[in-house]
């Protein structure tokens, strides 16, 4: 109810609403790569470090005051890159990347804390880019749970079918699983279809 009056007051006073867009998704789906692409395009510097090892982002990174301008329309927002959301974290998965057992266990612990932190940030975001690896099966507990929760909270979101440059990718599979939501196929790494993403972002979150 408080939000309703705040929004009404903002509109009456023609105040610009603070938009906070969170990047959510599985570990290694390309959230930080996408955050870096957006920040490099509109701020001129990347946001975080990327790596092949899952759970590289284990804490929330934020870039304030990003402005996207598309066809004369502007979207002002803060971008929030969150750690990958998973239901299981096993240190053994990190050993194959050359980490010692101690390092892998510490990474697993930090990754688990990061998942909790990412979920808590859902209270603060006003929009979400749900990033999925289009080469992987999108029908996972984490994806379904997040989408259900975003719907319940009435948080607008876009599904990003990332990694369309991979031969085994299929953005259509994601569209087929979530037909009621907008799916934007992109390659954050190779900047494929990024302009379309900016257009959809302005349309959805402005």
């Amino acid at each position: 109810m408080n939000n309703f009056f705040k929004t009404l007051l903002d509109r009456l006073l023609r105040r610009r609403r603070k938009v906070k867009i969170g990047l959510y998704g599985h570990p290694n789906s390309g959230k930080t790569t996408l955050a870096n692409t957006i920040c490099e395009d509109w701020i001129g510097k990347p946001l975080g470090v990327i790596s092949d090892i899952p759970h590289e982002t284990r804490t929330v990174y934020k870039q304030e005051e990003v402005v996207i301008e598309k066809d004369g329309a502007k979207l002002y927002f803060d971008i929030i890159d969150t750690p990958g959301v998973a239901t299981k974290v096993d240190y053994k998965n990190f050993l194959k990347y050359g980490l010692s057992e101690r390092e892998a266990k510490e990474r697993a612990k930090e990754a688990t804390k990061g998942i909790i932190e990412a979920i808590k940030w859902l209270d603060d975001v006003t929009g979400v880019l749900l990033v999925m690896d289009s080469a992987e099966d999108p029908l996972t507990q984490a994806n379904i749970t997040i989408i259900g929760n975003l719907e319940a909270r009435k948080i607008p979101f876009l599904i990003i079918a990332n990694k369309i440059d991979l031969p085994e990718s299929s953005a259509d599979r994601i569209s087929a699983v979530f037909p009621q939501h907008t799916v934007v196929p992109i390659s954050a790494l190779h900047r494929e279809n990024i302009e379309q993403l900016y257009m959809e972002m302005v349309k959805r979150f402005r």
Partner: protein
Amino acid sequence: MRRLVILVHQCINCGAKYKSVAELSEGCPKCGGRYFKYTHKKRREDKSPGDSIETIMIHENGIYEINLTPLLKDDSIIVSDEEGKYVIDLNFLLKKNLKKRF
């Protein structure tokens, strides 16, 4: 880190170790010896509650340890049976946050 010490009865004659005194009523089941000393079987390293993030630790099937600190602080359920292996109940966490919001 703290050490967990398990005390056992050790047969002086053959060195076999027994957790329960009930099985020694007829002497040592191995050699029949009647004299035992009270000693440590093994020392197991255990984490202090401040180090751990899991709310439920499964020591073995049927033996659970509940860590109240993260449970009260974070409102999250993280189940673990080994350090570095965690299962997170996303639904519980999301529902808790959703209730707070409305």
